[in-house]
């Protein structure tokens, strides 16, 4: 890996990590785990950096993040415990809607959560979501439909459902 290639990679990480971190946070619901997912995924991206089309680097990194999320859940049967507390502001206040959204996303199956995040946060088309996750378009449609229905149950007050 040449020095200029490494600097390109650093610049890419700097530019892409905010979006990747938010995507990972929506998918896993925890900021520490999101940082770990994106860090590990970008380290893997580095291994292929010389051969990646720069224009597709973010999409590739996003795919690695999501695959790593699924792979990490399969490999660990218990919560990952850290032996030090991440340094964060003592009381982070976020709008209630954000907390409700994250809690609602947590009620979805992992794949449904990924589909919903890619469709309605990353704004990918159904075909793009299918290519990112390596699943069929039909599966994207059904997962998005189930995910939205579940979010409707959790987020919309009873008696206030709209078509």
């Amino acid at each position, binding site marked *: 890996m040449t020095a200029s290639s490494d600097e390109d990679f650093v610049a890419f990480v700097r530019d892409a990590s905010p979006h990747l971190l938010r995507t990972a946070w929506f998918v896993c619901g925890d900021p520490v785990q999101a940082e770990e997912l994106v860090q*590990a995924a970008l380290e893997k991206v580095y291994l292929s950096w010389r051969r990646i089309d720069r224009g597709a680097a973010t999409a590739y990194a996003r795919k690695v993040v999501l695959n790593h999320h699924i792979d990490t859940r399969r490999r660990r049967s218990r919560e990952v415990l850290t032996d030090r507390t991440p340094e964060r502001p003592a009381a982070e206040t976020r709008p209630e809607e954000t907390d409700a959204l994250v809690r609602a996303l947590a009620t979805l199956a992992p794949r449904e959560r990924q589909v919903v995040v890619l469709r309605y*946060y990353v704004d990918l088309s159904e075909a793009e979501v299918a290519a990112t996750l390596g699943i069929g378009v039909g599966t994207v449609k059904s997962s998005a439909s189930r995910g939205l229905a579940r979010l409707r149950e959790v987020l919309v007050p009873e008696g206030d459902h709209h078509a």
Partner: protein
Amino acid sequence: MRDDISTLFHESTPPSMSLDPYAVLAGGRRRRRRRVALTGSALTALAVVAVAVAASGLGSGRPTALPANSSSPGLPVSVTLGGTEPMLDNQGHAIPGPSRFAVEIDPTRPDNLGYYAVDGSGTRTLIARSDVTLPVAPTGAGPVTWGTGSAAPHVVLGVLPAAATSWMLANPSATSGSHSDQATLGVTGLQAFVSVYDNATDAAKATGVIWRDAAGSVWDQSGPVPSASLDADTVAFVDARLDLWGDFTATGSMSAPIPTTAKPDVTWSGGDQRVALSGGDQFTPAVHVGLVPLRASRPEATFAPGCSQRVGPTLIPAGDGLHAFLYASCVPASASTNAITGLSVVVDGTRISS
């Protein structure tokens, strides 16, 4: 609902999160070095060194015989592991403690195995002593020993048979990554290894060592492990003693806890494709291995467009009477595409997918 959800996403306020891009770069470089270190062909030749040994530390002390096949009977044999630059954890911070080590076999001592930290000037400081039975048979399980010491709490040092072409520390409780290195201890029939964990508490959780030999047999410290050769480079195993299953491939290794649920449970390896990029536009095969119940049937795989030299999917008995390996492989068209995008089997009439 769709528009409302999109609005919620885009107007959300995430918690503060950040990455140090240079820490990511360091981590990527470390992964690249580790992949090279774990390749079976990377075992290095040994330089025989006679050193003065500090007589302190731990060890059970069993009488040992001089290696019958030693080219230098009576002389200690040692190797150095790791390097002089600090090892970095996933956050890019230097892991406390030494990064360079020496492992020595001194056949003149009952506690014939010495583990040392090596500083920048080459001075050795004893971490611990132990003992290993010599001589070592050329095949079979062979002696395995490993341990940690208070002088280097992040570190696991040990020896295993030199016949091992790939190895892994069994550590299902570990919560952090590690750096690893190994080197052959001359003609003793052994190789020394080291693993340095990001979290010091992980080093003490190691439960064993699993390795494969050139013939494709898999072993742990207690003996043979049920396994199956899936292709010329890939061997998968199920180790009930250590509660791990996994595989050794041409590009690395993987392990995961064995599923324990009573209902049919299927575990899949991979996620990110293990593709060895050999330069230019040539790629070595991406390998997917899953652990399924032995009664699974009708395997299916979805190969990405352009993926060539497709193999499988096939079900191969794991040899433990309980499981089979689901195997599929192909050569991807490029680095940015998944090679195998889906695997599934039928268990008890239900198709279960990855």
